[in-house]
């Protein structure tokens, strides 16, 4: 299970991002995870929740978008969705195809509480 080390990399990267961009409390972390990435979303969420306390992400949740596997044929340039991990071009039957998507393991966005909102709340 490497989801724990992936979760810890996410926390490190986002923490740096928070400092660099001087962000307010992060409520959600948007991830893009490819079907070929070998990451189990449940295990990742579990690992993230286990590690996040005492970090700037203590209040944050993961929002995971699963990216399907697609490929581009090197012979006929046809783009197709890869079903059942069969990397063969449905148009010309070539197996010389490049993976186009599905290997992602990316932090796409962060959702923060807007600073204005915070001021409003203290005023009330």
């Amino acid at each position, binding site marked *: 299970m490497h989801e724990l080390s*992936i979760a810890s990399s996410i926390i490190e990267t986002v923490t740096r991002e928070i400092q660099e961009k001087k962000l307010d409390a992060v409520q959600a972390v*948007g*991830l893009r995870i490819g079907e*070929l990435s*070998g990451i189990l979303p449940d295990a990742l969420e579990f690992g993230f929740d286990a590690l996040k306390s005492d970090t700037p992400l203590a209040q944050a949740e993961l929002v995971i978008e699963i990216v399907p596997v697609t490929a581009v044929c090197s012979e006929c340039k046809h783009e197709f969705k890869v079903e059942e991990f069969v*990397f063969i071009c449905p148009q010309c039957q070539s*197996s010389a195809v490049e993976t186009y998507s599905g290997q992602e*393991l*990316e932090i796409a966005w962060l959702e923060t*509480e807007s600073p204005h909102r915070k001021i409003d709340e203290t005023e009330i």
Partner: protein
Amino acid sequence: MAEKVAVEKKVLSENDKLAAEIRAQLKKHAVASLNFVSSPGSGKTSLLEKTLEALRNELKIALIAGDVQTENDANRLTRAGGTLVRPLVTGGACHLDARMIARVLPEFELASLDVLFLENVGNLVCPSSYDLGEDMKVVLISTTEGDDKPLKYPGMFRRSSVMVINKIDLLEFTDFDMEAVKRNALQINGRLKIFELSCRTGEGLQAWFDWLRDFVKTQKNS
């Protein structure tokens, strides 16, 4: 009001950066590199042992051994390969990462090396996420494992360049379907170079050695 901030960063960008540095360093000294991955018990140590023994007089090989289970494994490899075996204590990690490799790489005199073997931790999931700076991954399976390995771990087979099927001497005692395995693996990755061999009997090893020797030469001249 919640606010969305775009980030667009790879989770493993730090690892990828280090791996790129390792790759550049190996390239500079014309050192070929292979990352060996498998499940536990596929015979990775045996394959490395046989390979070091067979090619030690022709090629200057170094090995970073990240999956030695026992002192005995490490000794076997050291005997087979001389002094260039560096066991890596991973502390129970389920994969090698670029940081671990970068840490021990300075122990080798790269200019005098032809090829570096990286023996990854025995598991077909976690190591697939971590680039170590290698030229290619070699995935090893054996006939005593299920023949559904490629379908269960498509990510690893997609990212590998070579598949070695070990223990073919035991084929007749198992219900391992060789043709199905090859078909499934090639559907996932049509460019896979496949070797069928037995580290115990030696059958098929020569083809692997020949290919490896050629590969190292090609990398040196590129």
